[in-house]
């Protein structure tokens, strides 16, 4: 009997040499006459331990080793890795006992890392398609009601109640409706969508089919960012396997229900994550933001009623259907129900994905899970919620991670990205970048965003060069207000958040920039 050895097929694993670890394992096993079977599982999201190699212990457990570099393979085999030996510095013991993983509350990511991501057999064995099987027996309204009961709110950033959006689409009378999955994941510091698509793509597919049943749509599109080539490949394999096993396509499992699904690639435009821009892009147009109303739920793709949901929103649905909306709603705090996969990124020692019920503090995340900065220096600022999210100083790290608590304090939870910066960061440079990013990524439809951001870069350059600092800071503030109140969408409307929070909480970086640099703004 061959011994199963797991090496994730995952962007971060591959980025850190995963493929070479696999080839070394194969070569060493062959030359030593060892019988191993390498399974490419998904990543468990413990990015700091990637490549995380797991060995099947034969009694239901898995012995973990990481981070494994190709050069470690030989010594690991010498030390008895295949017998689950812990006699090596990289040995981590039973994988599910690693505190980083054990202390999470994994609903969406329960299967991540356990299975071969594109195997229908693995998926079924671990509860896959249970939700869909139930949904196939339910009325459309009952499915929507279950999602409403769960309290699920959109994980793409705006936190709109998913059940209510679905109700609107269900209520529309139309010959064609669509389910669109927003897999544009443009926010820096976020990768949970990618992890779903690479580690458990069948769950996303299942969620989309359930959405189709709930509103009467038989065509789905996953709008995937071009920057995710591996997710693209894995999604397409998963779709092919699901189709072949009759979980997708016509007459799914003999139910008489149909659902077709296709992946469409974006083309490197941050704004195409905004749902109406995304729809224009899917229609083959420039990604200009559309004025709302009409809501996409009523007039969406090709003018038809359309659900647009983030990957994580749709991925939460199979659990909700399988276990009932209430069991999801039992997690969380206040009006933020269920779990959120937080993503620890940037200058953090233990970066990765941490799925928890809403409510822990930022400090718990970065200290208990993240173990502080990667550089060993004190952390200075944390940007939560992507490039349009505020920079939070230490005084705000005790806020509970909950949509309402965050917005009450001028912060944004968004897609759950947490990007840490140590004390070498120059916040005036970060503020400049926010404006620069808006210049590069504005769709160009409205003046405050398009022109305002260009002016923003200029003004910040002047501040950084020490020119009329007080007057220019005031000008910057006015400019930010104009952007906030005069922009059609959150691109222009929220770019001021990181800028103003940087000025407010880290004024020294702007004044110091003014006194110590002599025209030293970076070009």
């Amino acid at each position, binding site marked *: 009997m061959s011994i199963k050895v797991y090496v994730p097929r995952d962007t971060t694993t591959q980025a850190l040499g995963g493929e070479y670890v696999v080839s070394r394992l194969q070569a060493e096993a062959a030359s030593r006459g060892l019988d191993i079977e390498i399974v490419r599982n998904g990543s468990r999201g413990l990015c700091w331990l990637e490549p995380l190699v797991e060995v099947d212990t034969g009694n239901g457990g898995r012995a973990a080793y990481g981070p494994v570099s190709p050069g470690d393979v030989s010594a690991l085999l010498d030390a008895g890795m295949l017998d689950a030996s812990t006699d090596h510095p990289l040995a981590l013991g039973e994988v599910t006992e690693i505190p980083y993983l054990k202390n999470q509350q994994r609903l969406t990511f329960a299967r991540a890392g356990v299975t071969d991501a594109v195997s229908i057999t693995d998926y079924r064995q671990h509860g896959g398609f249970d939700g869909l099987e139930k949904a196939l027996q339910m009325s459309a309204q009952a499915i929507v009601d279950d999602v409403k009961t769960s309290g699920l709110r959109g994980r793409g950033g705006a936190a709109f109640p998913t059940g209510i959006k679905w109700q609107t689409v269900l209520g529309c009378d139309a010959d064609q409706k669509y389910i669109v999955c927003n897999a544009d994941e443009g926010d820096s*510091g976020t*990768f949970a969508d*990618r992890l779903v698509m690479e580690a458990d793509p069948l769950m996303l597919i299942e969620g989309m089919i359930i959405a189709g049943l709930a509103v009467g749509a038989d065509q789905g599109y996953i709008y995937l960012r071009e920057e995710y*080539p591996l997710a693209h490949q894995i999604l397409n394999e998963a779709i092919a396997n699901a189709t072949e096993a009759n979980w997708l396509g016509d007459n799914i499992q003999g139910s008489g229900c149909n659902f077709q699904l296709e992946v*469409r690639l974006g083309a490197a435009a941050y704004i195409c994550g905004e749902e109406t821009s995304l729809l224009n892009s*899917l229609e*083959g147009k420039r990604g200009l933001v559309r004025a709302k109303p009409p809501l996409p739920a009523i007039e969406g793709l090709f003018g038809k009623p359309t659900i647009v949901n983030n990957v994580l929103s749709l991925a939460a649905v199979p659990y909700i259907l399988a276990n009932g909306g209430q069991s999801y709603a039992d997690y969380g705090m206040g009006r933020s129900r269920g779990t959120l996969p937080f*993503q620890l990124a940037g200058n953090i020692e233990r970066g990765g994905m941490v799925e928890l019920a809403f409510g822990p503090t930022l400090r718990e995340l970065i200290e208990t899970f993240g173990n502080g900065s990667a550089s060993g220096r004190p952390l200075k600022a944390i940007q939560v919620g992507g490039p349009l999210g505020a920079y939070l100083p230490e005084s705000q790290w005790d806020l509970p991670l909950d949509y309402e608590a965050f917005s009450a304090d001028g912060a944004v939870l968004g897609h759950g990205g947490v990007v840490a910066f140590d004390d070498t960061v120059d916040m005036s440079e*970060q503020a400049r970048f926010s404006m620069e990013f808006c210049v590069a990524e504005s769709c160009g439809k409205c003046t405050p965003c398009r022109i305002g951001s260009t002016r923003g870069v200029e003004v910040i350059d002047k501040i950084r060069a020490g020119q009329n600092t007080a007057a220019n800071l005031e000008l910057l503030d006015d400019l930010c207000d104009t952007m906030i109140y005069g922009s059609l969408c959150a691109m222009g409307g929220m770019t001021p958040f990181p800028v103003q929070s940087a000025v407010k909480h880290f004024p020294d970086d702007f004044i110091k920039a003014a006194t110590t640099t002599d025209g030293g703004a970076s070009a």
Partner: protein
Amino acid sequence: MTVTPQWDRTAVQQILESLQHTPGALLPILHAIQDSQGYIPPESIQMIADALQQTRAEVHGVVTFYHHFRLSPPGKHVVQICRAEACQARGVRALEAHAKNTLGVDYHGTTADREITLEPVYCLGNCACGPSIRVGEQIMGRVDAERFDALVEELTTATLELK
């Protein structure tokens, strides 16, 4: 020294024929053309417009809206550096400066030997292990100046072997 780039009209024609009837066909078409030709040949825009019954200006507007599509051929390898915040926190600004310096080009530039085109990218989803770069379909993490130089070396010597 301007070289008139060669492109394969027949290949583009075939792409148009196979995709022009899919709903929202333009992006899939542009991706397929760029994947096969390395760029969107400006002369192909009229062909695309005709196939989709759109104006040349409409198609051109779409091509130029998206950062991914290019109207001129890139070097042999496109190297993208992630400029976004999580990679900034891991020192990508220094890496960017180093890359521009070593290659002697700015973003969107191609080295004189046409080996490498340098492009910025905003996040590759490897934000816990930055700085991140991408070459073709391969993403690399924790890239410092040394790893970058090794990569450039590898990319440029691999070409020599092709002789």
